[in-house]
């Protein structure tokens, strides 16, 4: 890796700089030994090229050794900084600010460059889990497309000081308006108070998380904000509230939700009712899901509220598919304790109703608390449109891209001078008189409060890479505050000396949790009516995108290539419609349509989404960017379409619109899972909590389904030997000495708590240097993620054996997809003991180690791909190209092609994110999940060093016959996916230790093996999922959910088509089941 570059581009600074010491400018990365190569023109890769060439010329004479041994330099410090050990990563506590709070994090830095983000486990409101955006945000730091420096008039590059002086000049005369994004930094709020009289301040966010505060404030007549504690709710009713995915603080909700879902054996499992239009992650995890238009949610809320004794509400007419019994039972369950949550796309009235219900069922103070949250008093973007000003300072956000269309942004800034502080040179930076490069949150000082009220620190791990400025610095300059950002934050906290150090060390201020506010009774006066959508009208719903958010992650390759947790589409958004709507309009997937709302229209391709309400069009925000970013504008083509302008200002997340067909060839989607059904196979195993076939009565239900079930023993067990018929001979049977009796690594994944949030997928990508491959490669099935989440739909009346078609295309036309149940399954290398991949590798590139790991030895691999073909779980990934060596648009270039011509702006900045503990794979080798072998080795080495110290100490004390154990302690290794999982659904550890967490997890009666009948003895096992429906609630088609739909499919399909149809076979099993 390069550490010295030309002086115009400064990638990182040394540790000295971080500790506030002086750093020589001629050596921007004063850098310790090992990773250094001074010679620009002769890198190791060049050496490998030459090496290859010299092999070719071997016969012509054995070359001298000179050219085969490049001179590499080791450059130590002039003065060694304290507490720095080369090769040992350093960890700093910080936080990632979000719109209404923050995610407490711990950041790993290798040789001064941040490489990995984890949750801060010590924070009082964190279990160390994170969300996918927090995991992905580190990639933004090294985004080659980020703004590289400040720019004044005539595109002149300005350093920090010059840029601030230019700012002074621009803001001096006339009236100033400032437009900000939302966050809750106390320091920012303090600086804003000093701006009064100097500037008018406005705020805008396209995703309106502030509605939760406004709703609660309207309900109680007091400035408060709800804080949900889902682990205390026996029943949860979500009114279009995607608390698992699209809402702020989702990772916290997932943690609490999982805590309660896990309580199977103390009979406390919670029940989730959802009323929503679009299939969300919350809907996917619902026990009962009502598919209604977003505009009908108010009616449902009112119906349930009046059942629970909230007076003065008229029910109005509810959609046809809403059954009285559903509402009654839901109200009944809520009466026994629970919580109601309203989503950010719903109008204030629905929020007030939710709080009214919460009050009636006694949820307040229990599963929902209220924290004081004063209005920041800032104007909205609509106020900005009416305000008069000469200079507009746009800080963060991206209004030129995502402002409501009716505001006519271009007209609004016409003739005004514009100062833009932005992370990218984006839409809002166009025509700016002064452009300031914004710092990443890992480069700046700041503070925030997490949703529980705890004050958290944001501290820089690295000096701004491109001379950027932070929001706080710019605001302070305008306000005339001469302190540095560091001093401002320190002054806000009022801490100094050791207090301040302690605060930074922990990352949060101990004991600053907010005290719940006492709230009175709910005033439902404003809740009587809400915008509604008639049955025959088309409803256009604007959704926060799971991967790119509102567009702020649009240039983040990990996010773009992350399959949407529901649609599994990468690199795109779509006009999502239901099967019935598509049929009515005569659409199929990929057809182009023009969606119109008022005067604005946007064209996009159609995608049929199971479980969506009829008569709705769901448009995910955040795509269709008009920037030069090579991810957001992949290969020169815009990714997706921009739905922001369609949305009028001041409306909730849905409006009435119209649609017509548009011209153009059908669109190709890069979808990673276009077959939706398990076809009745027992891949994901489920049972209801209650009922005849339920978990309570049959705790071992998971071992009664699938070909590996007890009931199938007569087919799978060889009567002569009493052992399973084997396809492969078990290596451990033949040579038991190959198995380390003390350590066998294994993983357990609890399907009951996994909600499919995809944080693990990005965490794995970040930890293991997994590249992205681009849309066209994903279309070819060449995505590289080691860990994927499979999402299956199961439906009423879906009987795969009854003349059903297996064609992926036809599944969109079938009625069973209208109201499906959804299951998610994280799928990664299973680390089989008798691994099919190993037996077919001709060069022993994939082999087993004695601790049960299925290893991939990259430098042995010759790329036959036999292993991938023979893997039944399809978890192996092949490097078809040099994804790590070239920009995505140059993949097809030959091995000797220069990167420079394709890469005028330093694409290789991205190389700085690599984890130094993991090999960066090259073209032509296979790769797959390693169980984070680098973390295992690290833990083993740590333990061994420790053991030696214990030995020495004991000998020094004069003890005799000292022996020490080198066994890694329980919980000593955490894989990246496990660490990121907010639900704690992934458990990893030593299976050979009966007391380890993973052994405990695998003891569960719900434990099963995917494709267990292959008898490959995987070390990854799953714990079957339990649904908790109220058996009295009818399903959508006059059925009751007396069994999960997947179990019904399984039975209908004669136990999966992977097996034979013998006489009486089905019958015998039906009786048993």
């Amino acid at each position: 890796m390069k550490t010295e570059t030309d002086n115009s581009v400064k990638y990182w600074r040394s540790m000295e700089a971080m500790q506030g010491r002086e750093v020589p400018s001629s050596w921007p990365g004063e850098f310790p030994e090992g990773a250094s190569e001074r010679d620009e023109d002769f890198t190791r890769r060049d050496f490998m090229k030459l090496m290859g060439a010299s092999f070719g010329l071997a016969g012509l004479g054995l070359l001298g050794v000179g050219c085969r041994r490049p001179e590499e330099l080791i450059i130590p410090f002039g003065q060694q900084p304290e507490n720095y050990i080369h090769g040992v990563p350093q960890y700093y506590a910080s936080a990632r600010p979000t719109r209404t709070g923050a995610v407490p994090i711990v950041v790993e830095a290798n040789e001064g460059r941040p490489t990995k983000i984890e949750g801060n486990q010590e924070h009082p409101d964190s279990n160390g889990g994170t969300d996918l955006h927090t995991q992905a945000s580190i990639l933004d730091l090294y985004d080659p497309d980020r703004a590289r420096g400040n720019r004044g008039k005539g595109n002149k590059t300005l350093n920090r000081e010059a840029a601030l002086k230019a700012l002074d000049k621009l803001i001096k005369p006339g009236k100033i308006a400032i437009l900000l994004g939302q966050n809750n930094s106390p320091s920012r709020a303090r600086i804003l108070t000093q701006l009064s009289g100097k500037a008018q301040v406005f705020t805008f966010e396209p995703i309106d998380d502030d509605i939760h505060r406004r709703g609660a404030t309207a309900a109680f007549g007091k400035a408060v904000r709800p804080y949900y504690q889902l682990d205390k709710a026996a029943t949860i009713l979500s009114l279009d509230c995607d608390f698992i995915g699209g809402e702020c603080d989702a990772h916290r909700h997932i943690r609490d939700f999982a805590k309660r879902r896990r309580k199977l054996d103390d009979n406390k499992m919670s029940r989730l009712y959802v009323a929503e239009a679009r299939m969300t992650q919350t809907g996917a995890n619902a026990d009962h899901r009502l598919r209604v238009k977003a505009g009908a949610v108010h009616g449902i809320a009112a119906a349930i509220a009046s059942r629970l004794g909230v007076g003065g509400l008229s029910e109005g007419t509810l959609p046809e598919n809403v059954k009285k019994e559903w509402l009654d039972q839901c109200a009944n369950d809520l009466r026994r304790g629970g919580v109601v949550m309203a989503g950010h796309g719903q109008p204030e009235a629905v929020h007030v109703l939710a709080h009214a219900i919460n009050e009636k069922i006694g949820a307040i103070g229990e599963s929902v608390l209220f924290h004081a949250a004063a209005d920041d008093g800032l104007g909205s973007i609509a106020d900005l449109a009416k305000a008069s000003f000469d200079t507009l300072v746009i800080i963060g956000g991206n209004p030129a891209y995502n402002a409501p269309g009716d505001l006519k942004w271009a007209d609004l800034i016409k003739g005004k001078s514009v100062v833009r502080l932005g992370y990218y040179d984006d839409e809002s930076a166009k025509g700016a008189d002064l452009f300031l490069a914004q710092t990443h949150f890992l480069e700046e000082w700041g503070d925030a409060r997490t949703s529980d009220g705890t004050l958290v620190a944001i501290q820089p791990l690295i000096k701004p890479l491109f001379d950027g400025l932070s929001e706080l610095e710019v605001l302070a300059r305008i306000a005339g505050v001469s302190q540095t950002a560091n001093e401002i934050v320190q002054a806000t906290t009022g801490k100094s000396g050791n207090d301040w150090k302690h605060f930074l060390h922990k990352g949060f201020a101990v004991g600053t949790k907010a005290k719940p506010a006492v709230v009175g009774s709910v005033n439902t006066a404003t809740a009587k009516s809400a915008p509604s959508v008639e049955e025959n009208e088309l409803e256009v719903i604007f959704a926060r995108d799971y991967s790119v958010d509102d567009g702020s992650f649009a240039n983040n390759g990990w996010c773009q290539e992350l399959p949407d947790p529901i649609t599994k589409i990468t690199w795109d958004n779509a006009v999502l419609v239901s099967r019935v709507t598509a049929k009515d309009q005569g659409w199929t997937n990929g057809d182009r349509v023009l969606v119109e709302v008022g005067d604005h229209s946007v064209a996009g391709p159609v995608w049929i989404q199971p479980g969506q309400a009829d008569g709705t069009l769901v448009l995910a925000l955040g795509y269709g960017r008009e920037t030069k970013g090579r991810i957001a504008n992949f290969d020169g083509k815009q990714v997706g379409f921009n739905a922001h302008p369609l949305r009028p200002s001041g409306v909730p997340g849905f409006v009435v619109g119209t649609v017509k067909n548009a011209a153009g060839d059908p669109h190709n989607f890069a979808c990673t899972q276009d077959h939706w059904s398990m076809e009745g196979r027992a891949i994901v195993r489920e049972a209801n909590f209650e009922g005849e076939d339920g978990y309570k009565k049959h705790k071992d239900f998971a071992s009664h389904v699938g070909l590996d079930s007890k009931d199938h023993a007569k087919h799978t067990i060889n009567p002569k030997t009493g052992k399973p018929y084997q396809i492969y001979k078990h290596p451990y049977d033949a040579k038991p000495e190959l198995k380390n009796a003390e350590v066998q690594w294994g993983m357990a994944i609890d399907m009951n708590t996994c909600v499919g949030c995809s944080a693990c997928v990005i965490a794995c990508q970040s930890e293991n240097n997994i590249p992205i491959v681009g849309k066209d490669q994903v279309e070819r099935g060449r995505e590289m993620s080691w860990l994927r989440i499979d999402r299956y739909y199961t439906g009423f009346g879906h009987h795969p054996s009854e003349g059903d078609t297996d064609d992926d295309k036809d599944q969109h036309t079938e009625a069973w997809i209208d109201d499906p149940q959804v299951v998610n399954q994280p799928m990664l290398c299973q680390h089989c003991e008798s691994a099919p991949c190993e037996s077919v590798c001709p060069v022993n590139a994939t082999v087993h180690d004695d601790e049960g790991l299925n290893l991939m030895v990259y430098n042995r691999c010759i790329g036959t791909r036999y292993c991938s073909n023979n893997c039944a779980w399809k978890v192996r990934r092949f490097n078809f190209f040099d994804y790590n060596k070239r920009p995505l648009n140059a993949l097809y270039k030959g091995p000797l092609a220069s990167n420079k011509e394709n890469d005028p702006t330093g694409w290789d900045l991205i190389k700085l994110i690599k984890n130094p503990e993991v090999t960066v794979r090259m073209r032509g080798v296979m790769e797959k999940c390693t169980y984070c072998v680098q973390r295992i080795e690290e833990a083993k080495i740590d333990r061994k060093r420790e053991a030696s110290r214990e030995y020495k100490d004991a000998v020094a004390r004069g003890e005799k016959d000292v022996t020490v154990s080198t066994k890694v302690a329980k919980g000593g290794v955490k894989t990246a996916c496990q660490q990121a999982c907010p639900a704690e659904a992934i458990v990893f550890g030593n299976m050979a230790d009966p007391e380890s967490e993973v052994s405990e997890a695998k003891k569960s009666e719900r434990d099963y093996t995917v494709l267990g009948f292959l008898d490959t003895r995987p070390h990854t096992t799953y714990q079957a999922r339990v649904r908790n429906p109220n058996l009295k609630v009818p399903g959508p088609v006059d059925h009751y959910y007396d069994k999960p739909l997947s179990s019904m499919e399984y039975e209908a399909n004669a136990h999966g088509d992977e097996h034979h149809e013998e006489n009486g076979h089905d019958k015998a099993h039906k009786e048993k089941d």
Partner: protein
Amino acid sequence: MSNVFPKWTNRLPLLVLVGGVLLGGGVVTGVSYYFTPKYTRVGYQPVQPVSFSHKIHANELGLDCRFCHNMVEQSAFSNIPAASTCMKCHSTVLADDARLKPVRDSFYGEDANHDGILQPKEDKNKNNQNDRPLLPWVQIHKTPDYVYFDHSVHVTRGISCVKCHGRVDLMDEVRHAKPLSMGFCLECHRNAHENVRPLDKVTDLGWEGDRDAHGNLYHFVDPKNGTSLTDRLGVKASENCSACHR
């Protein structure tokens, strides 16, 4: 019809065959000998920016390896000492020696009067930073990028520096003494008990092992009951790929 080809051409196929075999054999022999780490690496002795002598420091003065390579027990890397480490002694010893100029420059930087404060007149390019010239040591020992060798776990577990680096304490200028090939690593991993030495002898490069009454080397902590140091320390040198390749 005349003979187009002279008679000796009848032997051509044989000659081609024999010649091919000889040439092929020669190439194979050449490659397998000259392209091995032993040939390409052993003996590599680049010229360093400062003629530092390990022999003087480690042998004659008796400095422990860890005096300079002080983080070797904590990190995968054995650090090359910063100039500040050298200056601990050389601020007084040989303080004005011309050979040590690069070290002093790297330590003091623009601070020309060596008072620890950067005066404005010393700051040559007026950036308020003490710019220091680099001290570019040339790397001698290097494993390939796909090998994750960890110094700390070897030196804290009784593997001496000398096993991989040779008698550095007898070298004036360090050279590559051992091949550091995979075969070299495995040889030791397969016979860990013969290579693990008492923990206080790790940096004693000249230590040759204790001998029993018959003059044979032994590697036991306690020759009476036969427990070896490897057993005591729980050393199980892994031969799995995962030990070094991740």
